[in-house]
C-alpha cells in the first residue's frame, strides 16, 4: 500500500494537470474574494457609490468568513476534477494495464488513489485558502474593515475548508471509478457543480420541505462543513443547513460509497 501510494503521488507530480488546476483555483478564488471584498468595502465606506442608502456594513462580521470561504464554496470543483482525472486518465491513456501489472491487487490501487487524492485535495485547499484569505483580507484592510484573522473562528473555518477540499478530491476518485470515460466524467462534474446543484439549491430554498432535502446536496454539505458560504447568505440565511460535522460525514460518505460502487463495477472488469 505504501508503494502504491508513492506511485500514485508520482503519477500526479509527473503530469501537468495539478499545477494547471492550482493556478486556475488561485486565480478564480482570488478574483472573487478580492473583488467582492473591494466591492463590499466600497459599499461600506461610501454607500452612495453603488446606489445603496443605508449606512451599515453589509453582512457585518459575516463578511470576512464569506470571502475566505470562496476557496471551498466555488473552488471545490478543482480538487474534484483532480481526483476524477486521477482515475479517468488511466483509462484514457490506457495506463491501467501497466498499473495493474505492477500492483495486481486492484483494491490496493483504488485505495492508494483515494488516500493520495485526500492529500492532493488538502494541498489544493491550502493553496485555495491562501489565495482567498490573501486577496480577501487585503481588500478588507484597504477599506479599514475587520479581517477577522485574529479570531480562532476564522482559522477553524480555514481548517474545515481544507478538510472539505480533501474530501472533494476523494469524491473525484469515486466519480472517476464509476464513470471511467474521461469526457463523460468531466462533463458530469462541471454540469453538476456549476449548473445542476446551484439551481437545485436555489429552487429548493423556496420551500421549507425541499430545503430539508437540499441541505444534503454535496455542495450544501460542503458549505455546512466549512461554516460559511455566499449561498447561505444569498438564500437569506434561512438557517436550514447541516451542522459542520454532519456536512463532513455527508461528503466522506459520498466519497466512500462512490469508490465502493466503482470498485465493485468498472474496477473489477477485464482490462482490454
Amino acid at each position, binding site marked *: 500500500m505504501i*508503494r*502504491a501510494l*508513492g*506511485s500514485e*503521488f*508520482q*503519477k500526479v507530480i*509527473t*503530469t*501537468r*494537470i495539478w499545477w494547471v488546476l492550482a493556478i486556475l483555483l488561485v486565480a478564480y478564488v482570488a478574483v472573487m474574494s478580492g473583488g467582492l471584498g473591494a466591492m463590499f468595502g466600497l459599499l461600506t465606506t461610501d454607500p452612495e457609490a453603488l446606489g445603496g442608502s443605508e449606512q451599515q456594513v453589509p453582512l457585518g462580521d459575516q463578511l470576512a468568513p464569506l470571502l475566505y470561504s470562496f476557496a471551498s464554496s466555488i473552488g471545490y470543483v478543482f480538487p474534484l476534477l483532480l481526483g476524477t482525472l486521477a482515475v479517468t*486518465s488511466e483509462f484514457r*491513456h*490506457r*495506463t491501467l*494495464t*501497466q*498499473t*495493474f*501489472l*505492477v*500492483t*495486481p*491487487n486492484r483494491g490496493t490501487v483504488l485505495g492508494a488513489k483515494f488516500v493520495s487524492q485526500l492529500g492532493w485535495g488538502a494541498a489544493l485547499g491550502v493553496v485555495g485558502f491562501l489565495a482567498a484569505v490573501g486577496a480577501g483580507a487585503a481588500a478588507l484592510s484597504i477599506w479599514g474593515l475587520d479581517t477577522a484573522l485574529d479570531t480562532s473562528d476564522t482559522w477553524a473555518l480555514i481548517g474545515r475548508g481544507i478538510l472539505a477540499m480533501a474530501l472533494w478530491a476523494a469524491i473525484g476518485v469515486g466519480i472517476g471509478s464509476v464513470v471511467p470515460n474521461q469526457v463523460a466524467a468531466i462533463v458530469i462534474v462541471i454540469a453538476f457543480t456549476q449548473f445542476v446543484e446551484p439551481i437545485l439549491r436555489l429552487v429548493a430554498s423556496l420551500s421549507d420541505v425541499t430545503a430539508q432535502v437540499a441541505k444534503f446536496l454535496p455542495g450544501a454539505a460542503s458549505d455546512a462543513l466549512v461554516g460559511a458560504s455566499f449561498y447561505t447568505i444569498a438564500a437569506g440565511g434561512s438557517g436550514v443547513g447541516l451542522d459542520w460535522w454532519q456536512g463532513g460525514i455527508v461528503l466522506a460518505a459520498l466519497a466512500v460509497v462512490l469508490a465502493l460502487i466503482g470498485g465493485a463495477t468498472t474496477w473489477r472488469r*477485464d*482490462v*482490454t
Partner: protein
Amino acid sequence: MAAGTPIEVSGLTKRFGAVTAVEDLTFTVQPGRVTGFLGPNGAGKTTTLRVLLGLARATAGTATFGGVRYADLERPATKVGASLEASFHPGRTARNHLAVVAAAAGLSRTRVQQVLEQVGLDQYADRRVGGYSLGMRQRLALASTLLGDPGVLVLDEPINGLDPEGIRWIRGFLQALAQEGRTVLVSSHLLSEVQQSVDEVVIIAKGRLVKTGTLASLELDESPRTIVDSPDRAALASALASAGLAYSEGRNGFIVDEPDPGRVGDAAFAGGVRLSSLHRLKSGLEDSFLALVGEGGER
C-alpha cells in the same frame, strides 16, 4: 536476477459473451530460450496474455508462472516483466514513467537510469512521451519490463514499429536475455518478424493451439518436393512419367512429388534428358506458418 520459471498454460478458455476468444489452450514455455507466440490478428494471443497476467479472468483453465498465478506473485515486477501495449501518459517523460513503475514496484531510482541505458533511451529520457515514435515507445515499454530484473519476460508485439536497426537490436537483446536463463515469450502476428530471434514457437489460430515445437520442426512438417527443369520439357515429362513420378508444371519447371532430387535425376538420366536445374523445393517457414493458421489457402 530472479530465476526463470516456466510459463504453464493449461486448458485455458476465455469467452466474451457468446464469442470464444481462446479455447482449451495448453502449452508450456521453457526458460533459457526465446519462444514466439504466433498467430494471425484476432487469434487470441493478446487475450491469452491478458489472462496469464491477471488482467482478465479465465472462463476455464489456468495460466501460471511455475504453478503460481500472476496475481499471487510476491512483488510481481521482480519476477515477471510484462508489456502488453506501449501506452503511456503523453505528458510524462520516459524517466518519470519508469519512476512511477519503480515506485509501485518498490525499486530504486538507480534502476530507472540503468534500464534507460539498457534500451538506449537515456538521451531522450527527459522528453515527454507524447513526442515519441512508435519505436521509442517500444523501447520504453521494454525498459519498464526490465526494471525489476525479472526471470520471465512476456512481450506483446515488441517488434511492431521498430526500424530495421531496431529489429536487429531487439533480436540480439532477446537472445541475450534468454541465454541468461530467463523465460522469454514474444508474441507476433508475423513469423518473418521473429523467425530470426525465436528458438521455439507456439502457434495459435482462432483461439486454438495449432503447433508447438522448435522453429526447425516447423520446416520438417512440410513434405519436401523436388523442382526440375530441362530445355526439352516434353522429353522430361515422358521420362518422369515412365519412372512413375507424379509431377505438376510450375513456373520454373516441374514440381515433382519426390523428396530426393537424386531419384529425379536418375529418371532423367534413364530417359537421356538434359537437365538445366535440379534441386529440392523447400517452402519457406512463412508458407508453413500460413498453412498452419489457415491463411495460405487449402493445400
